[in-house]
């Protein structure tokens, strides 16, 4: 269902692993890992000290960890990533910052999105959210190399 999702509230902390077949939006904090076959969004003010693997990832908050997006990764003007990122498509907005390796070519071109251009943002002044009208589809991807944990 494209209309259900998981939200971690601004005053909440999940210490552990989140695994989803729907969008996961982090307003609060996640310490551990987040995997989704859909989108993972770390909102402004949100913090993920976690490795993130998803079809689409949007960072408007802070991520300490590796990010692997099979379709698209966007770091917005307030987004901060300390870690390695891999995605066939990457958008780094003015104001956003990344410190780490960036790998875009190592994924095969079949990872290009076809039926779904998903861009999610909650805060105003950003792109509008377009819900996917396509039925949820199985994301076929190779197992990414095990990312290194980014704990200090």
């Amino acid at each position, binding site marked *: *269902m494209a209309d*259900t*999702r*998981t*939200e*971690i*509230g*601004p*005053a*909440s*902390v*999940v*210490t*552990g*692993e*989140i*695994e*989803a*077949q*729907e*969008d*996961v939006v982090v*307003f*609060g904090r996640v310490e*551990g890992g987040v995997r989704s076959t859909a989108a993972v969004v770390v909102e402004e003010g949100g913090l993920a000290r976690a490795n993130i693997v998803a079809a689409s990832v949007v960072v408007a908050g802070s991520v300490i960890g590796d990010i692997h997006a099979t379709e698209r990764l966007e770091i917005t003007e307030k987004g901060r990533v300390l870690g390695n990122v891999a995605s066939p498509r990457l958008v780094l907005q003015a104001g956003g910052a990344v410190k780490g390796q960036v790998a875009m070519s190592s994924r095969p071109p079949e990872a290009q999105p076809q039926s779904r251009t998903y861009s999610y943002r909650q805060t105003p002044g950003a792109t509008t959210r377009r819900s996917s009208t396509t039925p949820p589809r199985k994301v076929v991807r190779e197992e990414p190399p095990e990312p290194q944990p980014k704990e200090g």
Partner: protein
Amino acid sequence: MAETVIGPRTKVQGALEGADRLVVRGLVKGTVSVDGPVLVAPGGTLEAEVAAVEVAIAGAVVGRVTARGRVEILPAARMVGDVRTPRILISDGAVFRGKVDMDFADGEGATHG
């Protein structure tokens, strides 16, 4: 009050704590410590040690629930575990197996013993 919602297609394994209302539509395994209400929605599953202010159960819970306010076990609920709370409502139709301890001293913190 802001919310944390665990969606129907989400599994959380670990500790979930905070001050937002928690709604579980998916699966949470581990521990839950919420300074506020917790709702296990129909279809939701909580396999955890839970400490909260209020807990309303319309889904499945396996674990111990401590609520300093109250616990409602609603008609669709299936619960296995002990409950400690000063006020409890167990609806007709609910399936519940466990002990209920209503001896709750005033102002005793439930968010973690």
